């Protein structure tokens, strides 16, 4: 019998609802992204957006999936990590639906979901994962029952660094593609802080320096140098993790995964280590409900559900805290 799982995502700027089946078919994947009129994301304003859009997003997801709310066998909710007000909005909605249809609520870690949907789509059983977005920069691989973190940012995320710089240059949202277009015209490399500490990267000093240099250097040169430095740092720790873990494939995911420049760089790293390179398509690489639904299904199979009264959000829920019983231990 087919099982239907609904997944709800609301950790940051995106409110998403996806419906999948136990066969891994994505029946629908609807989302609404909050785009601030100016500046960065204000958590409260994003959460207001989510509560306004939730109903229409969920309705559309059910319509596209051509099923009724009462066909759903479980409601998966992304309980963290993320922005508190946004998480609470999504969790409240998910709890209400679970109560309404009297089906279990399934807790899902947002970072695990990014990895699982990538594995589903690429059919790679055991890749090294590079997950880069506005809020996360993580290099992870499965080992001994968990997704271990082999490298991560010590301060701000890669996407955050690039977004903030783009805003300082006056580029409208989404800033990264425009930044890359400028970078393509850059000619002279400007040295910026290149900070790799062991397996980890640090982007805050790079960002501060790059912002200071605005006006002093050509914007194209500066954009090119920022991207080369930021992506170069990531490539280095990725290469180190690839050499260390000896994984034979790499999976690039998260919002920044759509950067062609980054794809090219990581592909080259893979070629040097004879690893297969995969990038998750944008609609599933960015935050979305389908990935929560799919991971929810994997958890549901293992009887991982959570009572409504203890379904607290976890703003700082780390990837490597989560047990992954659906994968073989080795």
């Amino acid at each position, binding site marked *: 019998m087919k099982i239907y799982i609904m997944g709800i995502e609301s950790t940051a700027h995106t409110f998403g609802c996806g419906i999948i089946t136990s066969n891994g078919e994505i029946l629908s994947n609807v989302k609404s992204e909050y785009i601030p009129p100016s500046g960065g994301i204000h958590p409260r304003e994003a959460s207001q957006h989510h509560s306004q859009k939730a109903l229409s997003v969920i309705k559309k997801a059910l319509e596209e999936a051509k099923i009724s709310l009462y066909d759903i066998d479980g409601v998966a909710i992304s309980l963290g990590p993320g922005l508190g007000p946004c998480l609470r909005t999504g969790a409240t909605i998910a709890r209400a639906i679970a109560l309404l249809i009297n089906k279990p609520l399934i807790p899902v870690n947002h970072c695990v979901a990014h990895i699982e949907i990538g594995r589903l789509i690429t059919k790679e059983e055991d890749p090294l994962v590079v997950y880069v977005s506005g809020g996360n920069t993580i290099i992870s691989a499965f080992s001994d029952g968990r997704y271990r973190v082999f490298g991560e940012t010590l301060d701000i995320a890669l996407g955050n660094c690039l977004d903030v710089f783009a805003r300082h240059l006056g580029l409208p949202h989404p800033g990264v593609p425009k930044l890359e277009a400028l970078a393509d015209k850059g000619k002279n490399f400007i040295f910026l802080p290149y900070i790799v500490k062991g397996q980890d990267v640090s982007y805050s000093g790079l960002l501060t320096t790059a912002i200071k240099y605005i006006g002093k250097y050509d914007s194209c040169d500066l954009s090119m140098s920022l991207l*080369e430095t930021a992506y170069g740092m990531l490539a280095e720790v990725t290469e180190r993790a690839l050499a260390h873990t000896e994984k034979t494939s790499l999976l690039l995911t998260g919002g920044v995964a759509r950067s062609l420049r980054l794809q090219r760089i*990581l592909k080259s790293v893979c070629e040097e280590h004879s690893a297969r390179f995969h990038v998750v398509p944008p609609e599933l690489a960015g935050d979305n409900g389908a990935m929560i639904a799919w991971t929810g299904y994997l958890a549901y199979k293992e009887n991982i559900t959570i009572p409504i009264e203890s379904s607290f959000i976890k703003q700082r829920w780390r990837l490597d805290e989560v047990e992954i019983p659906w994968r073989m231990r080795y």
Partner: protein
Amino acid sequence: MENEILIKKGAEAELYKSTWMNREVVIKRRKSKSYRNPDLDRYIRVHRTSLEAKLLSDARKLGVPTPIVYDVDLNNTQIIMSFIRGPPLKNLIPKMNKEYMKKTFIEIGRLVGLLHKGGIVHGDLTTSNMLIQNDMIFFIDFGLGDYTKDIEARGVDIHLMRRAIESLYYEFSEYAYESFIVGYKEIMLDEANDILKRVIEIRKRGRYVEGDRHK
């Protein structure tokens, strides 16, 4: 050089065994990365090669056995150093009795203490990066090392050491770590206290162990 035999291909550098002026040597060569901007690539390789060569010889001056640096060639971003036969500590640990283990880890603690007191952190203290030869413990691979007296950097050094011990020899890991601390404190004296406190903090960040940080 002629007769180079590749002995290790790491992410950052390649190690070759060869002979140089009738000596058995290891050549550590940092290869160019095609994915990096050429200016940046050159800078990183030159900077790291020269830093590592300095760290190797300065560590030696502090009384920590390291390979002798014979030549630093920044054009080819390579270091030629004396060959240490080994074996790595990693291979010896399973064969150690308790008494010998205690002695060894006290000595490692002392050596790390000497590095830290002298203002150096190693950056990658694992049992594969320590070679035993003639009853001396040689520290190799300072590729992630730095000159710093920063508590965090020293704490990370010790944390990594502890993790390496735990992953290899779970049963006696606490005993080995305690011995390490005895040696470390012998050199670092009261300075050790703040650093060891930081080690506990680093561990609690939940990076590598069960996440009890938010419970």
